[in-house]
C-alpha cells in the first residue's frame, strides 16, 4: 500500500512535466492542425539555456560571425521579398520583426550576462532559479516565434505534410545543432543545484486510516514545485483561453480557421501567440525537468517530447484539458508498470502504448476529444 501511494506520487510528478509539454503540442494542433515535432526540442533549449544562465556562462556578446550571419540573413530575406515581386514597404514589413528582435537581443544579451555574473544573485538561491527560468522563457519564446515565422508560416497554405516534414527538419536541426561542441556538445552536463536542497523530502505524509492503512509517503520539494507549478500554469492558461480577448480569438481560430479571418481576427497574430505561449510552457517544463533530473544534453527533449505528444493524442489532440489528463495518466501508468511488473522498465513504454492503442480503438478522438463530423 505504501508503495502504491508512493508510486502514484512519482507518477503524478512525472506526468505534470509531460502535461506542460503536451499542452504546447495540443494548442498548436488545435489552431493549425500541425504536429509541431520541434516542440520537444524547444523544451530541451529551455533546459540548456537555463543551465547556461545558472552556471553563469552566458556570453555578453555574440561572436562576430553570428552578427554577420544574422545581418546577411536579414538582407537576403529582404532581397528575396523584392525578387518575388513585393514592393519595398511590404518587404520591409516582413523583415521588420526580426530586425527588432535582433536589436533587442544584442543589448538584452549584455544585460542578461551582467545580471548572471552579479554576486547578489547567489549560486543556489530562489533568485538564481527565477533568473534562469526568466532567461529560458525569453529564449524559448523567441525561438518558438522564430520557428513559426520562418518555417511554418510560408507553408501554411501548402499541403499539411510539407509543414510536418519541416517540423521534423527543425527538430533535427536543434538536436544535432546542439551536439556541435561550439553550441553545447553531445556530452551530458550536470545541472547546478539552483534551488537549495531541492531534492530533500519536504513532508513525510503519515497516511493513517484506522487499522487499515498506516503508511509513510515522501513528498519532496521538487515534487511539490513541479506539481504546484503545473497546476498554477494550467489555471493561468485556462484563464487566458476563456477570459481574455486573445483567448477568444484563439478559440475562434481553432474552431473555424478561415471564417475567423473573415470576422476580422488577425490570424497571424493568434498563431504567433499560440507558439510563444506553448514554447514558454515548454521552457518552464525544461527548467523543472533539469532541476528534477540534474543532467542536460541536446537529445534530452526527444523522449519527453514523444511521450508528451502521445499524451496529447491520448487525451484528445486539440483539447487542453485532455492533454493534461492524458499526461497524468501516462505518468501514472509508467510509474506503476515499473513498480509492479518484474523488469518493468523494459515494458514501460510498451504497456503505455498498448493502452494508447486500446483507448484510440474505443474512442478514436481521444479521452476528451470531440468527434468531428467530416463535411462533404
Amino acid at each position: 500500500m505504501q508503495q502504491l501511494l508512493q508510486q502514484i506520487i512519482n507518477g503524478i510528478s512525472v506526468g505534470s512535466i509531460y502535461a506542460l509539454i503536451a499542452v504546447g503540442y495540443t494548442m498548436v494542433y488545435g489552431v493549425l492542425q500541425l504536429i509541431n515535432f520541434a516542440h520537444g526540442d524547444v523544451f530541451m533549449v529551455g533546459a540548456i539555456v537555463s543551465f547556461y544562465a545558472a552556471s553563469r556562462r552566458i556570453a555578453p556578446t555574440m561572436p562576430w560571425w553570428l552578427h554577420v550571419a544574422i545581418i546577411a540573413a536579414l538582407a537576403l530575406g529582404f532581397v528575396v521579398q523584392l525578387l518575388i515581386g513585393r514592393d519595398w514597404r511590404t518587404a520591409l514589413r516582413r523583415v521588420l520583426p526580426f530586425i527588432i528582435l535582433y536589436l533587442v537581443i544584442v543589448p538584452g544579451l549584455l544585460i542578461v550576462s551582467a545580471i548572471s555574473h552579479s554576486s547578489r544573485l547567489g549560486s543556489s538561491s530562489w533568485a538564481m532559479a527565477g533568473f534562469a527560468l526568466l532567461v529560458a522563457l525569453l529564449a524559448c519564446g523567441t525561438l518558438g516565434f522564430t520557428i513559426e515565422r520562418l518555417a511554418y508560416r510560408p507553408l501554411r497554405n501548402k499541403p499539411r505534410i510539407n509543414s510536418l516534414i519541416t517540423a521534423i527538419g527543425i527538430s533535427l536541426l536543434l538536436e544535432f545543432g546542439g551536439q556541435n561542441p561550439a553550441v553545447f556538445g553531445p556530452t551530458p552536463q550536470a545541472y547546478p543545484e539552483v534551488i537549495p536542497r531541492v531534492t530533500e523530502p519536504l513532508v513525510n505524509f503519515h497516511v493513517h486510516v484506522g487499522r487499515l492503512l498506516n503508511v509513510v509517503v515522501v513528498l519532496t520539494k521538487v515534487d511539490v514545485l513541479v506539481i504546484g507549478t503545473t497546476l498554477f500554469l494550467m489555471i493561468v492558461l485556462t484563464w487566458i483561453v476563456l477570459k481574455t480577448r486573445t483567448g477568444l480569438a484563439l478559440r475562434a481560430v481553432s474552431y473555424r480557421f478561415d471564417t475567423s479571418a473573415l470576422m476580422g481576427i488577425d490570424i497571424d497574430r493568434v498563431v504567433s501567440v499560440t507558439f510563444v505561449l506553448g514554447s514558454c510552457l515548454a521552457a518552464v517544463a525544461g527548467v523543472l525537468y533539469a532541476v528534477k533530473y540534474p543532467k542536460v544534453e541536446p537529445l534530452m527533449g526527444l523522449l519527453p517530447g514523444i511521450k508528451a505528444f502521445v499524451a496529447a493524442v491520448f487525451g484528445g489532440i486539440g483539447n487542453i484539458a485532455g492533454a493534461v489528463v492524458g499526461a497524468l495518466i501516462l505518468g501514472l501508468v509508467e510509474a506503476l508498470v515499473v513498480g509492479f511488473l518484474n523488469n518493468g522498465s523494459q515494458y514501460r513504454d510498451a504497456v503505455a502504448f498498448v493502452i494508447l492503442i486500446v483507448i484510440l480503438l474505443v474512442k478514436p478522438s481521444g479521452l476528451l476529444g470531440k468527434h468531428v463530423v467530416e463535411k462533404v
Partner: protein
Amino acid sequence: MRWIFTGLLAASIAFFSGCNKSDSGSANSNQILIGHVASLTGDTATFGVSADEGIRLALDEINAAGGVLGKPVKVLTEDDRSLSDEAKTAANKLITKDHVCAILGEIASSRSIAIAPVCEDAKIPMLSPGSTNPKVTKGYQYVFRNCFIDPFQGSAMANFAMKNLGFKKFAILYPANSDYGVGLRDVFRDAVTKAGGQILVEVAYTEKSDVDFHSQLTKIKETNPDAIFDSGYYTEAGLIAKQARELGITCPILGGDGWDSDQTVKIGGQAIEGCYFSNHYSPDEDSPQVKKFVADYQKKFNGKIPDAMAILAYDSMRIMTDAIKRAGSTDGTKIRDALAATKDFPGASGVTTIDSEHNAKKSVVILKIEHGKFNYAGTVKPE
C-alpha cells in the same frame, strides 16, 4: 551557370580524393600507426577522453625514447560518440583505410564486444584498456584486455561489503540493456549468495534513456536493504543516488568501475557521499610507479587527477608497443603472439601478466566517496 557548378564539383572531388591519397599514403611509410577507438563525446565521454590522454602521455614517452623498431609511433583516435555501431565503423575505418597495425580500445564492454569481431576478422590485435565483461575476449584469438574481469570485480565488491562493511542484505539496480551491467549483476548476486548473504530484490532500468528511477527505488525501499548495488555507469549513478535520498533511502550504494568519473560526484553531489565502488587503481596508492604516473599526467594535463581509465590506457599503450618491439614487425599475427606472451610487464597500474584467456591479473581497489573525492578504502588481491 551550370559550367561553374560542374567546375566546382570537379574541383572539390579532386580536392577530397587528393586528401584521401595523402592520408593513406603515409600509412605504411616510415612510422608505426596504432588506432584508438574511444568515446571522446557522448554519454560516457570521460572514459574516452581519459583513455586518450593516458595514451598520449605514453606516446610522448615512447617517441622521446626513439619510437619502436626505429620508427616514430603515431596514434589515430576515432571518436565513436559512445555508440556501439559507431565504434564498429570506427574500427573498420582504422583497419581498412588507415591500415593501423593494432587497435587500442574500447573502455565500455558493449562497444569492445562490437569491435572484437572486426579486429579478429582482419587479424589485427586489439587491446582493451578497461572492458571488464568476460565476453569481450572470450573465444577470440586477437583480442586482449589490460584489466581484471567482472567475475573478480563483482566478487571482490561482494566480499568487501560483507566482511569489511558488515552488510548482509542487498538490493540490485542494473541497466538491462548493457552487457557490462547485466554481467556484473550476475556475478555480484552469485558472490553474495555464496557467502551467505541475501539479495532482496533486483530491479532493472534502461541505460542512456532513463532519468527517472523513483519507481525502481520505491520498490527497493520497501525491502529495506543494507546496501544497494548499482551495476551501471557514472551517467546514471549520480541521479540514482540523488533520487534514492529523495525517497528517504539512506543506505550506501555500491558500484563497479563504471562509476569512475568526476561526473559521478558532479551529478550526485551530497547524495553520493559515503558510497563505495570497485576500481582499477587509486591515485592515492602508495607506489612509486603510480606516483610518477600521476605527477607526469598532472604536468601534461593542467593538474587534472588521472582516473583509472587513464592509467589503464597508459599501460595498454606501453604494453602494445612492447609487444610490437618483441614481435620485431608490424605483422598482426606476430604482434598477437607477442601480446599473448606478455609476462611481468612493469606497468604503472601494477605488474601485468596476460593469462591464457587474454585477461590481465590485477588487484581490485575499493574506493569510498568522501567530500567529493574518491578515497582509498581497501585492496582485494587476485587469488
